[in-house]
């Protein structure tokens, strides 16, 4: 009886791994042929995306994704890390029990709601005060920053709390203030853990679809300023999938392949970084 249970559980674990394999398999099967046909270099770095003419260059989307993600990180990481340090070290204990779940709640809000808010409130604000179409890299970055905040805060708080108390006590015993101890001892010590969290947040930002569709403007071009409209890799797939056929559809799957690889690389890097001791 015990043996049967053991076998059943093994089957379950295998099927979970099989799901990943299946996803990779299907996406690759659909997407790789067109990538090879166009030429991988041409696909990744071609500036022209004109599927009706058979031109499949995704550089504009890659750059769009990069700009939007970078913006989200620039806005979100300092805020998130500062927040994490406050929660882990300086906030009164009772507040933390309310604040930490509250910030985690941000992760539960549907991305479409974020997008909606961006459209209703943020984009007009940008348009009237800073110019440009409003639906822009800046708008997308702001919203994404808020969306990845819970990830960064969550992982960073864990990283800071994992530091042995003796480090801080050693610093304090030598006459450091709380802030000095934090800046000179705990920040360097938790850096690798925080970095892992940032990379995870980056992954989330790159993978976000619905919110960016709604507020980034979706123009297919290479942007020149933060107020420009862009289209990300994910947005392109979502927008055109509805009516794409034949090679066009395959090219969208190929975009999926690129995304897949990128996330894999990010995950591996995050894992390596998190393991590194200071």
């Amino acid at each position, binding site marked *: *009886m*015990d043996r049967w*249970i*053991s076998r*059943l*559980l*093994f089957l*379950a*674990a295998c099927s*979970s791994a099989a*799901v990943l*394999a*299946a*996803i990779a398999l*299907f*996406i690759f099967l*659909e997407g790789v042929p067109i990538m090879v046909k166009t030429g991988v270099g041409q696909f990744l770095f071609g500036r022209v995306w004109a599927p009706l003419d058979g031109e499949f260059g995704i550089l504009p989307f890659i750059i769009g994704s990069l700009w939007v993600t970078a913006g989200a990180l620039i806005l979100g990481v*300092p*805020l*998130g890390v*500062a*927040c994490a340090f*406050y*929660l882990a070290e*300086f*906030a009164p204990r009772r507040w933390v029990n309310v604040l930490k*779940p*509250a910030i985690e*709640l*941000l992760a*539960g*809000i*549907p*991305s*479409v*709601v*974020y*997008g*909606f*808010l961006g*459209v209703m409130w943020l984009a007009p604000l940008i348009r009237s005060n800073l110019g440009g179409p409003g639906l822009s890299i800046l708008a997308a970055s702001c919203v994404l920053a*808020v969306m990845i905040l819970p990830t960064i805060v969550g992982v960073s708080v864990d990283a800071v709390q994992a530091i042995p108390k003796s480090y801080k006590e050693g610093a304090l015993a030598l006459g450091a203030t*709380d*802030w000095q101890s*934090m800046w000179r001892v705990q920040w360097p010590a938790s850096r690798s853990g925080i970095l892992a969290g940032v990379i*995870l947040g980056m*992954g*989330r930002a790159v*993978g976000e*679809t619905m919110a960016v569709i*709604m507020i980034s403007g979706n123009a297919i071009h290479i942007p020149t300023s933060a107020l420009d409209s862009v289209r990300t890799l*994910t947005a392109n797939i*979502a927008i055109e999938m509805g009516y794409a056929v034949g090679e066009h559809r395959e090219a*969208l799957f190929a975009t*999926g392949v690129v*995304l897949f690889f990128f*996330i*894999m690389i*990010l995950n591996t890097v995050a*894992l390596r970084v998190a393991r590194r001791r200071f």
Partner: protein
Amino acid sequence: MRIAPAITERIAKFVLMMSCATAVLALIFVIGFVLAGGLMHLSWAFLTEPILDMGRAGGILPAIVGTLLMVFVAVGIAAPLGVASAIYLSEYTIEGWVTQAIRFGINCLAGVPSIIFGLFGFILFVVLLGFGWSILSGGLSLAAMILPTIIRTAEEALRSVPSQYRDVAASLGASRWQVVTKSVLPYALPGILTGIILGIGRSIEETAVVIFTAGSAVQMPKSLFDSARTMSVHFYILAREGVSNQNAYATAAVLICTILIINILAYTIMHQMMRGKRAV
């Protein structure tokens, strides 16, 4: 000019506190904005009427039903599969390259953008297996998406049970399965349930995957093979098409209330169970 450490301390603490306040304010703003705009348009009729005129009128009952069915399928598949996998990884194997590989796979799966699950679900369930745009396709795709989350939280919960409990049970003659059910699972249950509830939350908010696999039919679904829309999808369509801001806000309000209720439920359940296990 060197500023005295005491002053740096005060400034630093202030800045940090402000960062935290900003984050919390963002949360309050988001929730408040939606609820303010939407609650006033909410009514019992809204929740129970069918979708009329592509959403300009009527209510959102089909979307609610669609959401419930899809989440039911997704969690019904992912929860048992995920918890079983976690039990296997945590209790039945020793750490080796096989478990490392499986875990790496699960971590990668957790990071894969949801749109990829949409593509995957489309190719496999909608086209290849012939389910078409249906709740079944949507539920299965969502299941694949939330599987890694459930496995990860469940495994963490299982590992956090002190190893001494296992030793005691084994020394009293418990078989491996008995050790798991009698002296590990009871204490890991809060964590496992949290993971499942997280999975439910993700399924409810997910839009891209659902559109690609379940379509966006406005009618009330009659079977798992029917196409249906979830609340998120309905909201997205209303918002994108600019069809009816009123109903959009109202749908968003329903969504947010659902998420809030689920989260609060999760926390209270966790708290209750943990207290129960602490001091009996």
